[in-house]
């Protein structure tokens, strides 16, 4: 007969998915807000979504391909780096945005209740739209190189693309809410995230192909859950990539693990974080 019961602490795994579903309108409105707010009063507006990956790809091509002469498995370097950039961009954006959930939204969270997971979820969806725009850019260059007859072979793995996206979203969300729950207590973690993501990129085959890594270190590389995502993506579109079953499994299991731990911690923190922030 009681609709709500407010108690000191929830059980560990009490994730109220139905409640999150009830706030679906709010989720989408937050997405809209982020879009509008981000590029209002900028001259180029949403064009920035395209300029960011374009510039980094050009710079990567010059530095890593022309200067450092890192081979790219016979794939045109420009396309190789753009694929890496677009994929990494989505993951790191999700991670960065969700990792500050509590600190950024302390003002709203302190005044009104709604399912707190709505915030990081809306972040991930906002970034998804940005990814789609950037993927469009990649697709355009992809078409151009295909017409020129570059040695790239798209294959059936392209169909795994939605799953890859979902995995990246969940991974970014998982790591993000994990960190955001910890930052309510330990502020120094936010500094760690800022350059940690940079370093993480170099531990992921973004600026080099996994095939360049000696076989004995592959296992180590596969412990990084993003490794297999990037390699599968490249393999699907470019026909070059080092895809292994253990890499994929490792990545999937890690994603789930991080997501579960992140959700548990997030649920725990959301009830009382207002007293500590």
């Amino acid at each position: 007969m009681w609709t709500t019961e407010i108690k000191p602490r929830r059980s560990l795994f009490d994730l109220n998915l139905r409640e999150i579903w009830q706030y679906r309108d709010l989720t989408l409105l937050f997405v809209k807000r982020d879009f509008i707010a981000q590029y209002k009063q900028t001259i180029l507006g949403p064009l920035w979504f395209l300029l960011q990956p374009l510039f980094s790809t050009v710079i990567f091509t010059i530095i890593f391909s022309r200067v450092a002469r890192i081979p790219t498995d016979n794939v045109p370097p420009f396309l190789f780096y753009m694929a890496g950039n677009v994929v990494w961009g989505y993951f790191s954006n999700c991670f960065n945005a969700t990792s500050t959930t509590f600190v950024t939204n302390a003002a709203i969270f302190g005044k009104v209740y709604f399912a707190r997971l709505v915030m990081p979820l809306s972040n991930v969806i906002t970034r998804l739209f940005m990814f789609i725009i950037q993927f469009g850019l990649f697709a355009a260059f992809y078409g151009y190189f295909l017409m020129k007859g570059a040695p790239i072979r798209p294959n059936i793995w392209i169909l795994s693309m939605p799953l890859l996206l979902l995995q990246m979203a969940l991974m970014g969300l998982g790591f993000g809410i994990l960190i955001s729950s910890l930052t309510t207590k330990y502020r120094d973690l936010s500094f760690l995230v800022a350059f940690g993501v940079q370093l993480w990129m170099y531990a992921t085959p973004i600026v080099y192909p996994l095939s360049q890594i000696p076989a004995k270190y592959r296992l180590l590389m596969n412990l990084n859950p993003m490794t297999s995502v990037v390699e599968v993506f490249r393999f699907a579109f470019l026909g070059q990539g080092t895809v292994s079953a253990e890499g994929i499994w490792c990545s999937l299991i890690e994603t789930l693990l991080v997501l579960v731990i992140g959700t548990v911690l997030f649920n725990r923190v959301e009830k009382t974080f207002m007293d500590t922030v």
Partner: protein
Amino acid sequence: MSDTVIKIENLWKEYRYGAVSHRYLFKDVQSWWARVCGREDPNAKIEAPGMGGSPMRDPGNDRFWALRDISAEIRQGEVLGIIGRNGAGKSTLLKILSRVTAPTRGSVKIKGRIGSLLEVGTGFHPELTGRENIFLNGAILGMRKAEITAKFDQIVAFAEVERFIDTPVKRYSSGMYVRLAFAVAAHLDPEILVVDEVLAVGDVEFQKKCLGKMGAISQEGRTVLFVSHNMESIRKLCKSCMHLQAGKVIEYGDCEPIVQSYVGNRGEASTGGAFDLLPAEKPPEGYCCEACIEDTSSRPASVLLVGQEWQLRVRFRISKPLDHFIVGLGVSSRMQGSLWTTWTTPRSIAIGDYTIVFQQDQIFFSGGRYYVNIGLSCFERPFFYREEALPIDISPVSIKNDIVRTQGIGCIVNHLRYRIERNDS
């Protein structure tokens, strides 16, 4: 009873003073490592030896209970006013009811959807237009998009912002902003509405409109919980009242008698001496030690007469050299809220003990009990503030010994110079 919509059972809420942990992972790891090695924790607070008291820190010392064992049953359609001094636990109670924070012990059971208004305009984004903000804010407060669409015209009309609905709210005047924010909230349709002092916004006309709207909401049989320092609006709106003091319910029942006793007809007797203002935790910049209301011959005065010359003596200590230092003084009444504020011109001040004496030729309040609020600030940032630091009792007798009316004359009695001349001379 079956029509109880909120059941609060033995609710306790504990807060801790200061940081919950060291806030730095590095230091926590350091402390942990020291414990593992059996060494002294490098981050433990250093206790001065031989200062008296136990060398161990009393774990109960840095915690305090904001709510202590609150139980209540609130029935369907009840309009409950929650009153009490600052720090009595009113806001904490509302925060728990609106699920912003969780209780430490006890539980609250709620029947129906609860809408809370702890602030107007939560989540308003300055770059979004009025229209976009209505949808966003409505959704934050728990409305579905379809509901907002259905009420959209009503909300805009209530806020009186029809012409600017597609303008970003950062271009709104503060009045328009607040009106729009309240309008969204007022059109929430929860069975239970929790409101925290939001009526203290907007102009008088709009405040009336808000009070009217809240009255209408309660007429519809919905339950309203309302926190306010303004006894007039509590009286107008509420049928029942809960008086909190130091985290406990001291009275709960019919509104009028509780408001009466709170306003101070039965209040603590004034001692007429100096009031101790020493804070529990001394700010690093300085603090007030004591304050005293006196007559012009510097004798403590327990009661002032209407129009009497008076002075307020405040002793304070400055613990480090400050620039742009200001002493602020305010007078408030529990009935009307803040009435009057004054402050000194900014100056630099050296370390030391000081006394400041404020003097006024005629106290211009009518009979009743008022309170003095005292603050110290540095570059507009208050580092010491004490609300209701000491009471001023004014007897309804003027300095010329005639009885002054107290009912219906307002709280300011101020004489104007005037002359009466015949026009037909």
